């Protein structure tokens, strides 16, 4: 007798965003809850059927165990991995393995942050992790010097310019292209078109990064529902298949970055692509963590979309623009639309929207394969997820 083996290929079957970019009526927990409701409704899954729960937080009230209680989820799989903004790409790696292994059947991933309403626009320039005057642990070797989050990325940008001749105009091109997509997103924080000149003439925040090289600060949350391909057959949305997922870390604190011009993307990118059996040429759209323009450049090089050091000229050729061969951040990205602290989940949500061909005005034509690549910390922890429209 032949027994049919259940198809446990991991898939994303539901996505949801909470109100953004300004939502003073929601606290962080409220963003988690609203995004969860919307993702479950999108997936056609009852909350009672969720048996896996995943989230992470930046030290607020929304701890993973606290949120599991708040949402009322009886989980048999839980993951609170915290790698900064890339956490959700690592979550997918873990969730995919858990689903294949049969640890659970349906996983809910949530994120929520009221950063703009609670903290104002302080994340990048002084509002990050300075609660006490006496600093312990490894940060004590950085804290006396007054570096900022922007300053950390600026040091990477400066070194890249020094070694490879990358210019402020190259970096600016990234911000200009993402802003064009933001113009198509009615919810985006900033929607008016900008030019390369606008970016390089905006004020320097931390040399060589200008104001328009930096992501926005917003409120916002997101949720993703994952299950098996078997179960997805009974659900309303086209399943988005997890074709590959890998992560890596090169350092945590910026002063420990071994090479200021390259990241762990150079390791985890090729690994995720190999799992998926694809090359960079097969990718139809990239949803990359655009905390700063330099972040995108380093991820492009790391994942092999161009050679190390050639990111500047590659970007200048316009590939990342609407109509280019590799459209970037079709929701308007963190640079123009929504960045509430840890953007990684929005990369997955927008990639899924594109692969479901529900992108509306910003739909990438014939979108079959999308890559979500998150960067957490200070270019520290990189997670790469390859998603596809067709069953592998």
């Amino acid at each position: 007798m032949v027994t049919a083996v259940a198809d446990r290929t991991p898939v994303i079957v539901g996505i949801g965003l909470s109100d953004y970019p300004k939502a003073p009526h929601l606290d962080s927990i409220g963003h988690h809850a609203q995004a969860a409701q919307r993702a479950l409704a999108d997936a056609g899954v009852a909350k009672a059927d969720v048996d896996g729960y995943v989230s992470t937080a930046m030290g607020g009230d929304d701890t993973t165990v606290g949120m599991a209680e708040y949402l009322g989820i009886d989980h048999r799989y839980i993951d609170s991995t915290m790698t900064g903004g890339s956490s959700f790409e690592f979550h997918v790696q873990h969730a995919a393995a858990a689903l294949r292994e049969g640890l659970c059947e349906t996983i809910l991933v949530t994120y929520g942050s009221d950063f703009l309403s609670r903290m104002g626009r302080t994340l990048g320039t002084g509002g990050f992790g300075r609660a006490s005057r006496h600093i312990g642990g490894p940060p004590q070797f950085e804290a006396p010097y007054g570096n900022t989050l922007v300053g950390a990325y600026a040091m990477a940008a400066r070194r890249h310019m020094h070694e490879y001749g990358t210019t402020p105009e190259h970096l600016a091109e990234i911000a200009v292209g993402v802003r064009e997509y933001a113009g198509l997103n009615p919810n985006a924080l900033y929607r008016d078109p900008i030019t390369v000149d606008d970016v390089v003439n905006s004020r320097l925040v931390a040399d060589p990064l200008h104001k328009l090289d930096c992501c926005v600060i917003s409120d916002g949350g997101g949720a993703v529902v994952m299950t098996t391909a078997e179960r997805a057959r009974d659900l309303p949305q086209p399943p988005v298949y997890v074709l590959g997922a890998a992560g890596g870390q090169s350092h945590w604190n910026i002063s420990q970055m071994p090479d200021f011009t390259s990241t762990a993307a150079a390791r985890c990118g090729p690994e995720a692509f190999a799992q998926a059996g694809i090359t960079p040429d097969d990718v139809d759209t990239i949803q990359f963590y655009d905390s700063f323009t330099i972040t995108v450049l380093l991820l492009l090089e790391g994942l092999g979309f161009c050679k190390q050091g050639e990111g500047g000229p590659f970007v200048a050729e316009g590939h990342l623009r609407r109509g280019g061969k590799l459209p970037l951040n079709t929701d308007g990205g963190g640079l123009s639309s929504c960045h509430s602290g840890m953007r990684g989940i929005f990369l997955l949500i927008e990639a899924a929207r594109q692969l479901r061909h529900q992108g509306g005005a910003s739909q990438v034509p014939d979108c079959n394969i999308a890559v979500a690549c998150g960067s957490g910390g200070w270019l520290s922890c990189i997670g790469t997820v390859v998603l596809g429209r067709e069953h592998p």
Partner: protein
Amino acid sequence: MTMDVRHVDEWTKPVPAPEPVSSEFWSAAAEGRLLIQRCPSCGSRQFYPRALCTACGGVPEWEEASGRGTIHTFTVIRQQGAKTFRDEVPYVVAMIELEEGPRMMGNVTGCPVDSVSIGMAVRAYAVEAEPGVAIPFWEPSP
């Protein structure tokens, strides 16, 4: 003595909280010595100080550095929300590559911010933040 130790009327910036491993570094700085670690097993040098060698897992020993280095990369902080640093903008935050190999973060002072460049030679001095705790800073080599 590797570093000139200087005093300020009032230190208002963050202060390191010396811990079992780090306390030796800060107190040595107050005496004008800049310490890094070297592993007697594998010879690897490292900074910041840790309880183990990141290369081989051995137990590192202290080594006095020359206090000379070059700027590996840097930024000029021009916008700063934290009160303790706001009045100092623009200022330079740099990664200093020590003559001995490891890098450390620091401020480069004593020169216009626009004169700082990658590869520039710098030397360390120390500023006392609390009795027995001094913070290394950097200025252009003469």
